[in-house]
């Protein structure tokens, strides 16, 4: 898609339904443009009026136009500011919706940081939103100002208009050229800063080795070099940036020199009145800044188009297909699960009935977590018909909200979108997740904010919040992916003892003998294939590798030393 098509599509998208604001800006900009030119015209009126003696009234009108223009500008700029921000919101909403709906596999191609950049930086006022409203309407207004001023000048003196206006387009061209070059140099600065940051990061990361081996001098030398390179890039950038500023501040005044000469001659031979000359002067001053708006339009468009391309890539992500849900009470795991990265071969289908607990174990890379994610419907291409599940992934996910919201994943007590909430039985949930005491100790109990702007939970507490979340969901299938690994043996035992298993299908990944022993069946996986299925006791008895790995919990850092040595001794 070309830059123009892409920009046009987004422009239409963000302006859809905003007709009133668009009309306001179209009319308001036209009025301010007219007043811009009118203010310069009033200079002529005032000076000419001095001859006739009613200068006071003319000056008052002039003042009225000037102040009125400023007030009208408050309205126009205020509208532009508001619409800029609304556009930013609309663009982010559109992209976020696409990201949220996208197929997980497609999304996995993007790094988190990259997605965040697109959701924040690329939609930002600076990069995109400003251009789609302010940029466009400033250019529109600039065009109208130029037309109005040129009309005003032509009315006074067509030939002199040529003298005054001729140098101005040159300014636009030089500004665009400088602006583009400046973009390249700014990139060079970014790269130099990035390199210096890498040096800093490397040194601070390895500060122990640097101090242990007396490498401070090398570190300082490396940083000095990087900092010098950064200064060089900054100064190269500053040369152009300052050139742009000088063009802004002084370049256009050459047009005033031309006007001074040609206009002065006309005043001399009496074809131009003093008022006309003053008005011309005013028109040229009024024309300058619109010229720069044209330049800014071109430069900012390129920026916006680059951001748009990155946003469109996310919008174009196909939405994920809804996962099939089984209404059978039992879970049937098919014999073969094929994912894009892994083929899981269970040999035969495994059925887990309500009230039953299936454990999955095996060494790293066996496919345990893949199996769990597939059962939770989170693996694209491996859609299994499973009952609705409460899934606890291996790495705890704790959001920066309150404990209650972390457990319910909805605003506490509210019935917000997607989540019918009646006040849950907190006592039961917290007790089942062994969280009662922890929550009691928190400053605001369940209402305590956790995460980035709140209290920090320990690894074990995070896991128990996850367990509470799974239990509160009240779903018939419970998927626990090594979800109790950070709990001490005592707490874990309490959790399992307290779990009401009736009616629940439970699948759990664990490495602990104590947990495996609680399961009705254990699936022993290795490298995507099933090694053995059976009870813990039977596997220990018949499978040597399983026995070595899982016969006891000795040395797993969960039992007191004495218990561990006893267990190890019996192994």
């Amino acid at each position, binding site marked *: 898609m070309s830059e123009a098509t892409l920009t046009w599509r987004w422009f239409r998208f963000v302006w859809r339904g905003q007709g009133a604001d668009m009309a306001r800006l179209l009319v308001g900009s036209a009025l301010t443009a007219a007043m811009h030119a009118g203010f310069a015209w009033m200079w002529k009126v005032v000076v000419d009026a001095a001859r006739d003696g009613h200068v006071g009234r003319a000056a008052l009108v002039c003042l009225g136009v000037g102040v009125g223009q400023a007030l009208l500008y408050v309205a126009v700029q205020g509208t532009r500011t508001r619409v800029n921000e609304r556009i930013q919101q609309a663009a982010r909403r559109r992209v976020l919706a696409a990201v949220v709906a996208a197929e997980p596999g497609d999304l996995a191609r993007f790094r988190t940081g990259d997605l965040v950049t697109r959701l924040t930086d690329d939609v930002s006022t600076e990069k995109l939103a400003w251009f789609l409203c302010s940029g466009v309407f400033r250019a529109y207004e600039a065009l109208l100002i130029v037309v109005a001023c040129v009309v005003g000048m032509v009315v006074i003196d067509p030939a002199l208009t040529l003298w005054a206006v001729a140098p101005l387009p040159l300014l636009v061209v030089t500004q665009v050229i400088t602006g583009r070059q400046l973009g390249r140099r700014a990139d060079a600065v970014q790269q130099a800063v990035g390199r210096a940051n890498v040096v800093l990061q490397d040194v601070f990361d390895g500060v122990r080795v640097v101090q242990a081996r007396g490498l401070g001098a090398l570190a300082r030398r490396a940083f000095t070099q990087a900092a010098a390179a950064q200064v060089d890039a*900054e100064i190269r950038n500053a040369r152009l940036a300052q050139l742009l500023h000088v063009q802004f501040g002084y370049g256009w005044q050459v047009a005033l020199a031309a006007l001074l000469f040609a206009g002065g001659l006309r005043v001399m031979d009496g074809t131009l009145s003093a008022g006309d*000359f003053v008005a011309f002067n005013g028109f040229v001053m009024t024309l300058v800044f619109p010229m720069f708006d044209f330049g800014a339009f071109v430069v900012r468009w390129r920026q916006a188009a680059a951001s748009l391309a990155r946003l469109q890539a996310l919008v174009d992500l196909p939405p994920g297909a809804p996962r099939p849900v089984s209404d059978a009470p039992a879970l049937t795991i098919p014999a073969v699960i094929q994912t894009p990265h892994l083929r899981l071969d269970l040999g035969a289908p495994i059925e887990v009935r309500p009230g039953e607990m299936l454990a999955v174990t095996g060494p790293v890379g066996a496919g345990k977590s893949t199996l769990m994610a597939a059962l939770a419907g989170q693996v694209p291409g491996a859609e299994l018909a499973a009952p609705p599940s409460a899934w606890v992934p291996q790495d705890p996910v704790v959001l920066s909200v309150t404990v209650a919201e972390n457990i319910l994943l909805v605003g506490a007590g509210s019935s917000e979108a997607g989540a019918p909430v009646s006040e849950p039985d907190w006592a039961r949930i917290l007790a089942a997740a062994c969280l009662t005491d922890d929550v009691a100790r928190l400053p605001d109990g369940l209402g305590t904010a956790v995460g980035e702007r709140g209290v920090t939970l320990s690894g074990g507490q995070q896991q128990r919040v996850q367990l509470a979340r799974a239990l509160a969901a009240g779903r018939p299938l419970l998927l626990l992916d090594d979800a109790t690994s950070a709990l001490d043996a005592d707490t874990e035992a309490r959790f399992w003892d307290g779990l009401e298993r009736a009616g629940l299908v439970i699948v759990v990944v664990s490495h602990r003998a104590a947990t495996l022993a609680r399961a009705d069946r254990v699936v022993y996986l290795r490298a995507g294939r099933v090694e053995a299925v059976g009870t813990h006791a039977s596997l220990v008895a018949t499978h040597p590798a399983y026995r070595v790995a899982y016969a006891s919990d000795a040395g797993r850092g969960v039992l007191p*030393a004495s218990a561990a040595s006893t267990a190890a001794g019996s192994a």
Partner: protein
Amino acid sequence: MRWLLPAFRPHRARLLMAEALLCGATVLSLGSSWLVARALDVDVAGGDAAGLARTAALYAGGVLAAGGLTWAARVGIEGIAQDVMRSVKERLFAHLVDHDVALHDQNAPGRLVSRVQGDTEALRTLLSEVVLQAGPDALLFVGLLAVLTYEAPAMAAVVAATLPLYALLLVWFRRVSPPQFLHAREVAARLAGFCAEHVRALPLLRAYGRLDWVIARAERLAEEKFEADYRAGITMVWFFNTLFAVRAIAYAAILWVGAVGVSRGTLTLGVLLLALDYLRKMFEPFIRLQFHIVTLEKARAGERRIRELLAWKPTIRAPDAPVAWPGLTVGIRLTDVELAYVPGTPVLRGLSLDIPAGRHVALVGATGSGKSTLVQLLFRFRDPDAGAVTIDGVDLRALDPAELRRHVGLVLQAVHVLPGTVAENLGVDTVTAARLLAEVGLDERLGPETRVGEGGETLSRGEAQLLCFARAVATDPEVLVLDEATAAMDPGTEARIQALLAARGGTRVTVAHRLRTIADADLIYVLEGGVLVERGDHGALLALGGRYAALWRAQLAAEGAAA
């Protein structure tokens, strides 16, 4: 800001030059406008076409020269500000590199990077856009009022009357705007944090069918961001348009007074135009301000943070009269060592143990048992809160830390290669570097002068690990400490390092999770919760049937499972 003055000293001449150029540009700019008045009042009024052409050309020349001077001066000022900031950065960096490890543990590398880079950047903008611009701006105000007073006192009075209004507006804006901008930035940061957190949590939220909740909260945050941005934006709109309105009033007043004067013959047309032009010029510094108002607030906060960081003196320093390295003939001894990173939660609780000279000692224990803290003590990265660490009876605090660290080598799990040559990274001359490279078997791949690190040769993980090992033994230290050094090594690299270690001998301290690595140690200490729970060699500890024996069996079992 006073502490910055010394950094300007080397650039005094350049600074004077740049300021002079900028003042020159101001004078030229004011003079050019005056030429317009002269062209009208003298040349046009006198009917001198040739004179008009000369004056117009002079005007164009003056304007261009003012532009050129401004450019040169501004580039000069940018250069000075960059150089000043570079010296601040280097000072800050040197301060941090040699600072206590405790400071680095409390401040993540990313945070220190933004101190060194981000805060100085804001400060630089403050310098180049405000501080170094203040003189020329003052000259502009004074100059234009002086010229106008000379030409037409009434006009000067009108222009001067707007100054307090501008100042008042500025005071209001400085009070209202920065908090709004800082709030907007804070909300933006929160939104970015929200996005990061929830993008990562998407699979879970999808599994629980709570995507709507995410959208709803994102929507609320976006609304908050809208409010914050809009409020900050609208303040700016009011500020500038009030400024424009004040200027419009001044324009009208000048036109009125001027037009009456011109019609009565008490004032010339040229002076009227001059006053209009000066009014525009007086406005320019205020316009420039709009681009920097937020940076200025950041600069103030950044300046404070830099000052605080520089004022934070390291506690681990060489004593005034350091004791010479005693040599290691007896051993290293820890006596009743206590240490807490956070007061009230001790990591080492009265730990006493010996590391006999010439022996291989291993430290074993779970995460948090205190073994890595013990390593920190050996290098004097930290000092014990109570108790002492001695080498052959000499307290480490009596030694120069640099001297101590020359005699104790450190190999970590993470590899750290700095930008520079191999020899520089090893911290030795090129001849020694060549010998070391040959020793670790990297001589075919790297030479002493090969550049490594950022911008240099890319090393494989194994190569980097070997290089780090070579660095640790480069000074032929009497003690070698390996802190989980082989945990992330491939079997080939590990075998090579084990062979080098076996050939080397000497005193060695190994911290390892994998017990197989340390089974041959002369002495194994098992730590738990900051105290010593078991000691002995592998055989003795197995026979003891305690904590170590349990760990050993568990690891055997895990290896069996993986095999």
